[in-house]
C-alpha cells in the first residue's frame, strides 16, 4: 500500500497538464507585458522608435547634451512616459494581486476591490483627508504625498473588515450579502464624496473629480516612491499565503484541520489587499474591474491554484492597465480619457457575463 521511494513518478494527469498550462500562460503573459510596455513607452504625443528610446535611456549625459533629438526624447521619457508606464504596471499588478487574493478569501470569483467597496473606501479616506486635512491645520502639499496612501489604506481596511463581518459567519460566506454590501458602501461613499464637494475649494474639487474617474495623469517619481513600498508589502504578504489560500478553499474549519492558521491568514490577506488597493487608489483614483477580470481569465486558463493565479493576475492586470492607459492618452489626443472609464467599459460587460454564468449559484 505504501509507495517505495524508488517508485516511478506517479502520473497525475490533471496536475501535470495544469502545471504545463501555467508555465506557458505565465511565459506568454510576460512576453506580452514586455511588448505592451515597449509600445506604451514609444507611443504618445511625442512618438519615438524603440531604438531612440533605448539610446535616450542608455546614452551618457554628454552624448545626450550634444544631440537635441536625444535630449528631447530623454526629457519626455524621464519626466512623463516612464513614471506613467511604471505606475500603470504597478496599478495593474497591485489590483491583479489584490483581486486574486480577495476572490480566494471570499471563495468567490465575483469579489473585486471595486465591486465590494474597498476601492471606494480608499477613495473616501483620501478625499476626507484632502478636504478636511486643511481644516485641521495641516498644509495640503505636505500632507497629501505621505499621508494620502495611509488615509486611503485606513478607508480600504475599514470597508474590507466591515464587508467581511457582514457577509461571513461561522466560516461561511453569503455572496448576495457581499455584493449588496458593496452596493451600499459604494452608494454611501458616493454620497459622502458628494457632500465633501460642497465644502471643497476649487483645487480640492478637481482632485475629488479625479478620484471618481481614475487616471494615471498624476504619475510622478515622488508619487511612485511613496506608493511602491505599500504595494510591494501588500503583494509580498499575499504571495506568502498563496498555498494557505488554496487550503482555505475547502472551508475555514477544514483549512484549520490541515494546519492553516485560518484566522491569521484571513486577517493578513485582508490587510494586505487593503494596503495595496489603498495606496494605489490614493494616487490614481478608482480604477475598477482589473482585479475582477485578470484573476478570472488566468483561472479559466490554468485552474484555480492561487500560486499560479496570483502571478498570472499580476501580469495580465499589468498588461491590461498599460494598454488601457495607452488607449486613454491616445484615442482622444490631445485630450485624455480617464482610465477608469476605459476599464469600466471593458470590465462591466465582463462582469455581466460572469453574472449570467453564475445565475444558478445566485438563486435562479
Amino acid at each position: 500500500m505504501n509507495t517505495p521511494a524508488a517508485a516511478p513518478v506517479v502520473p497525475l494527469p490533471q496536475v501535470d497538464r495544469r502545471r504545463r498550462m501555467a508555465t506557458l500562460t505565465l511565459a506568454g503573459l510576460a512576453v506580452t507585458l514586455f511588448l505592451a510596455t515597449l509600445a506604451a513607452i514609444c507611443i504618445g504625443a511625442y512618438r519615438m522608435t524603440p531604438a531612440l528610446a533605448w539610446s535616450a535611456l542608455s546614452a551618457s549625459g554628454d552624448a545626450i547634451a550634444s544631440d537635441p533629438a536625444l535630449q528631447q526624447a530623454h526629457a519626455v521619457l524621464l519626466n512623463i512616459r516612464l513614471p506613467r508606464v511604471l505606475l500603470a504596471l504597478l496599478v495593474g499588478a497591485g489590483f491583479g494581486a489584490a483581486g486574486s487574493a480577495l476572490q480566494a478569501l471570499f471563495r468567490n470569483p465575483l469579489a473585486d476591490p471595486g465591486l465590494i467597496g474597498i476601492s471606494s473606501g480608499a477613495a473616501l479616506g483620501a478625499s476626507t483627508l484632502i478636504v478636511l486635512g486643511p481644516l485641521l491645520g495641516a498644509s495640503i502639499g505636505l500632507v497629501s504625498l505621505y499621508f494620502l496612501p495611509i488615509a486611503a489604506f485606513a478607508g480600504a481596511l475599514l470597508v474590507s473588515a466591515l464587508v467581511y463581518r457582514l457577509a461571513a459567519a461561522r466560516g461561511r460566506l453569503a455572496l448576495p450579502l457581499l455584493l449588496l454590501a458593496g452596493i451600499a458602501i459604494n452608494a454611501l461613499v458616493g454620497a459622502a464624496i458628494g457632500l465633501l464637494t460642497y465644502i471643497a475649494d476649487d483645487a480640492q474639487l478637481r482632485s475629488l473629480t479625479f478620484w471618481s474617474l481614475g487616471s494615471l495623469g498624476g504619475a510622478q517619481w515622488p508619487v511612485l516612491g511613496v506608493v511602491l513600498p505599500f504595494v510591494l508589502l501588500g503583494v509580498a504578504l499575499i504571495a506568502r499565503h498563496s498555498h494557505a489560500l488554496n487550503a482555505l478553499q475547502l472551508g475555514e474549519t477544514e483549512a484549520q484541520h490541515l494546519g492553516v492558521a485560518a484566522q491569521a491568514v484571513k486577517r493578513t490577506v485582508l490587510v494586505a489587499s487593503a494596503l495595496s488597493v489603498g495606496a494605489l487608489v490614493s494616487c490614481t483614483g478608482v480604477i475598477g474591474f482589473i482585479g475582477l477580470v485578470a484573476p478570472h481569465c488566468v483561472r479559466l486558463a490554468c485552474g484555480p491554484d492561487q500560486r499560479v493565479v496570483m502571478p498570472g493576475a499580476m501580469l495580465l492586470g499589468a498588461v491590461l492597465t498599460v494598454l488601457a492607459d495607452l488607449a486613454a492618452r491616445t484615442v482622444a489626443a490631445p485630450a485624455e480619457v480617464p482610465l477608469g472609464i476605459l476599464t469600466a467599459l471593458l470590465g462591466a460587460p465582463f462582469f455581466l457575463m460572469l453574472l449570467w454564468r453564475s445565475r444558478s449559484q445566485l438563486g435562479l
Partner: protein
Amino acid sequence: MLMTSNLCVTHGATSILRGLSLTIKPGTLTALLGRNGAGKSTLLKALAGDFQANGSTRAARHSGVTTLNGEALNTIAPRRLALLRAVLPQSSQLAFPFSVEEIVLLGRYPHLRGGVPSRHDRGVVADALALAGANALVGREITTLSGGELARVQFARVLAQLWPDAGNANDSANATPRYLLLDEPTAALDLAHQHRLLTTVRDLTREWNIGALAIVHDPNLAARHADVIALLGDGVVIAQGAPCEVMRPDLIEQCYGFSVRMLDAGRGHAPVAVPV
C-alpha cells in the same frame, strides 16, 4: 489515546454536552450514534480541537479537558496537530474548479515544505484515491462531481493527510498514534460504498495504528464494522461497548426514542435492529 473528560458545551442557553467523557483508542474504530441534535458533531468538533481555534465557534462555551496522546489539545500547534489527526467534514462545497488530484494533494498540506509535492506525495495521492475508491474520478473537476463522489474525494484527502511517512512506512504500527474523525462519512454514499468506506477505515486503524471515530446514523451499519459503539443521549454517553453488547432493544430505544426488536444476523455478528 484521544480522550475527553467531563466535557460540557453550551450554545447560548441550550446545554448540548453535559459532563461527557469518551476515549478513542489507537487501533480501534468507534462509531458514535445518537439522535439528530444530540451533540454528535459538537463532540467531534471538541475532539478535533475546533473549540481551541478562536473565532470559529465564538457562540459556544465549553469546559472540560481534551488530550491527544496525553498532551492537552489546546497546547498543540496547528501544523503539528494536522499531522496527528484528520477530520472529514460532513458536507462541503467548493466554488472554484479544482481538480480531484489537487484536492487530495491539499491533504498533504501539513507535510509539504515550500508547497512543492515530492515523489512520495504524488504516490500518496494516487494511493489514497485508490484506497477511497475514487481513482475513476482522476482528471475530473471537483465542481462536476455528485455528492457521493465528492465525499469519496474528501475521504481520499483525509487519508492522504494521515498517510504514513516514507521513513516509517514499515513500522507504522509502532508509530505515534494518530486519529481520524469522520462526521457522517457514509451520509452521501450508496450501500456498497458505505460498507467499503467503513471496512477501509477499520483496516487502517490496525495497519496505521490510528484511532477512528465515525458518526453513523444506521446502528446496523455501525454494528457491522465498529469495534466500539458509543450511544449519545442527553448530553452524555449512555452506553458504550462492543456492538454485541450495545445492540440491545432497550439501549437503542433509549438512544433514539424508537422501539426496535433484534434479529439474529448470523454467527460472529451483532444482531440487527428492525422496527417493531
